[in-house]
């Protein structure tokens, strides 16, 4: 247990040294610059657009961090041959893998938390500058605490993406291939609704069955998207959030188990 924590801490320090947290600065700068310009372009919809933009930027920046660091977690150690030195120490392979995973997920959550702070600061500023009538017309207040639910869902989605990236990188030796496969699965996971209704498009029942099977087997990333509901102040059932969170946890457990099994058998020449 302690070893996992140490590896995780090391990954976190490493990502700070790799200037991953600069993405927060980029996020804050973009959000502030846009909030300054947007009022002149949008006919009174600035609050909604800033909310949309902030959530989309958090999700997109996090996605790139999760994929590009996630695929390098193990592959880089093998490339630099430092994996021999690590595995010669009393670190078991599954401890290394889990520690790496938790370290990156921790980095992502710290990243999201700081971005959320900057996000609320910008929203509070917009809320203070908007006229009273515009605020009353908006479906949700400027610093709506429910936005945190959307951020939390983004965090869970990114944790799942990280697990996918780590899974591919345990057996593929090419970083480009791992990145492609991870992005591919992410995009496929957005098309859940189409796969589910595939049988209405094709005549062959077998093809419909394959589509439905894929729908249930592939990670359904579209389920984590509650950004629009939160921004429009629509109700979200707590049960939906709980089930989606449980789905993410079980899927992550599945991917990590598979990764540990593959990594344990892998032969480093």
């Amino acid at each position, binding site marked *: 247990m302690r070893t996992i924590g140490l590896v995780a801490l090391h990954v976190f320090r490493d990502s700070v040294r790799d200037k991953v947290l600069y993405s927060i600065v980029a996020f804050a700068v973009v959000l502030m610059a846009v909030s300054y310009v947007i009022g002149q372009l*949008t006919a009174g*919809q600035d609050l*909604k*657009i800033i909310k949309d933009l902030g959530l989309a930027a958090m999700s997109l920046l996090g996605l790139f961090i999760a994929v590009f660091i996630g695929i390098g977690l193990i592959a880089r150690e093998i490339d630099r041959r430092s994996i021999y030195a690590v595995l010669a120490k009393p670190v078991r392979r599954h401890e290394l893998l889990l520690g790496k995973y938790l370290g990156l997920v921790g980095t992502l959550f710290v990243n999201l938390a700081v971005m959320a702070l900057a996000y609320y600061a910008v929203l509070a500023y917009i809320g203070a500058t908007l006229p009273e009538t515009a605020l009353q017309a908006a479906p949700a207040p400027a610093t709506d605490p429910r936005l945190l639910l959307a951020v939390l869902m983004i965090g869970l989605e990114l944790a799942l993406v990280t697990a996918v990236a780590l899974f591919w990188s345990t057996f593929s030796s090419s970083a480009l291939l791992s990145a492609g496969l991870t992005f591919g699965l992410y*995009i496929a996971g*957005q098309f859940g609704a189409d796969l589910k209704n595939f049988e209405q498009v094709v005549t062959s029942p077998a093809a419909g069955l394959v589509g439905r099977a894929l729908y249930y087997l592939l990670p359904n*990333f579209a389920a*984590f998207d509650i950004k629009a509901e939160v921004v429009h102040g629509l109700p979200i059932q707590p049960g939906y959030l709980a089930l989606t969170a449980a789905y993410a946890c079980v899927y992550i457990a599945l991917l990590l188990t598979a990764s540990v099994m593959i990594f344990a058998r892998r032969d480093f020449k």
Partner: protein
Amino acid sequence: MKAVTGTVAGVAAIAVLMATIVRLQMVRERWFPQSEPAQQILYVSSPAVLTRLALSYDALVSDLYWIRAIQYYGGTRLSERASKSYELLYPLLDLTTSLDPNFNIAY
């Protein structure tokens, strides 16, 4: 000392080259004036395609089309052209509302 002169020379060279690029572009545009920008085009006009292209960023893309619709309306209204037609306004707003069905003001 040598390193400092090297840096200064490098920065100066970059500045001179950059100024030349800008200058060349200006001269070319004076000699061969660009034609008026073409009419606005809507590349993707199918809401079904765009919803899929937007992945999970539907709301943000919808905002972009909302801004475009407003700019299109304002631009056409203020333009000097004799015939003002708003034929792109409906498709732009249609895309906005298809991507984000709760964007009430766009209806």
